[in-house]
């Protein structure tokens, strides 16, 4: 076996794995399993990125997804009825539309692979990729990088302001009582 063959086999395994686990996400009753299948799917995508030469991006994707998917599992279990699938159920709503949307967006993205003119010369020094990323970040893309910081700050404050039920100035629902649906309750409150 040559290096190229090993790489091809691994790439195929990761690709297949990501598709299969991605499909399982919608085919399980348990929110925990759904979240962790998605995590497996993302990890496989990370593996594909590594084989394509983007070692840093691939590994960072895997690293990040652990935390993100745990948060997703926690939130899904929190708000979905029957989170463990003790009652069997069907995860997908409007699945004809979903299948159509999925297939068409896959085709659209896959077509990029054929339509875009990629550079002929492969990246000669993949091990310098991280360094180049850093230089780019601090050089030409400095403004983008700092803007990202401000955006993240806005997201953080927004998330806290919306989600938190209490703050320095008292409970969040104070003065913004939700009107009762039943007229009698409304009169009472």
């Amino acid at each position, binding site marked *: *076996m040559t*290096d190229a063959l*090993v790489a091809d086999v*691994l790439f195929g395994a990761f690709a297949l794995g990501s598709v299969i686990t991605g499909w399982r996400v919608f085919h399980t009753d348990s929110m925990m399993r759904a979240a962790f299948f998605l995590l497996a799917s993302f990890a496989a995508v990370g*593996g594909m990125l*590594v084989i394509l030469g983007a*070692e*840093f991006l691939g590994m*960072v994707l895997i*690293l*990040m997804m652990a*935390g*993100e998917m745990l*948060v997703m599992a*926690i*939130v899904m*279990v*929190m*708000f*979905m*009825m029957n*989170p*463990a699938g*003790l009652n069997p159920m069907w995860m997908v709503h409007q699945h004809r539309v979903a299948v159509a949307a999925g297939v068409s967006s896959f085709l659209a993205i896959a077509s990029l692979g054929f339509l875009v003119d990629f550079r002929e010369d492969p990246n000669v020094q993949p091990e310098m990729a*991280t*360094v180049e*990323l*850093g*230089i780019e*970040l*601090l050089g030409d893309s*400095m403004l983008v*990088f*700092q803007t*990202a*910081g*401000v955006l*993240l*700050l806005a*997201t*953080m*404050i927004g*998330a*806290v*302001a919306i*989600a*938190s*039920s*209490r*703050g*320095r100035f008292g409970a969040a629902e104070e003065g913004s009582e939700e009107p009762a649906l039943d007229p009698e309750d409304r009169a009472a409150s």
Partner: protein
Amino acid sequence: MLVGPLGVALAVFIAALVAVLLVERAGEPAAHEAPSPTERVPFAGGLPPQVHAWNRYHARYYVMALVFLVFDMEMVYMYPWAVVFLREGGIAMVEMAMFIAILLLGVLYAWRERSLEWS
């Protein structure tokens, strides 16, 4: 060299995973008869639970989890920055300090709003 260091790391990971799974299978001694209902009751100090434990679990730290999601993004930038830090010198220091200071404002806000505590 057939596989690079990451290949070796992957092999170690998979080998350990499979080995432990095999031990788990092999370690199961010859099955006693199927467990009776009382042998399957989850532990709560001796009394059986009224309902299933799996529930819409009220994770009291959901606001912190959201803050984490955002702050975690920052780490993506820190790695390449750390690698070129010595090369770039003062400019790297200033830029990252600015970026971090902006993000820390968010953490400071969350802390002041007491949303890191249990809701």
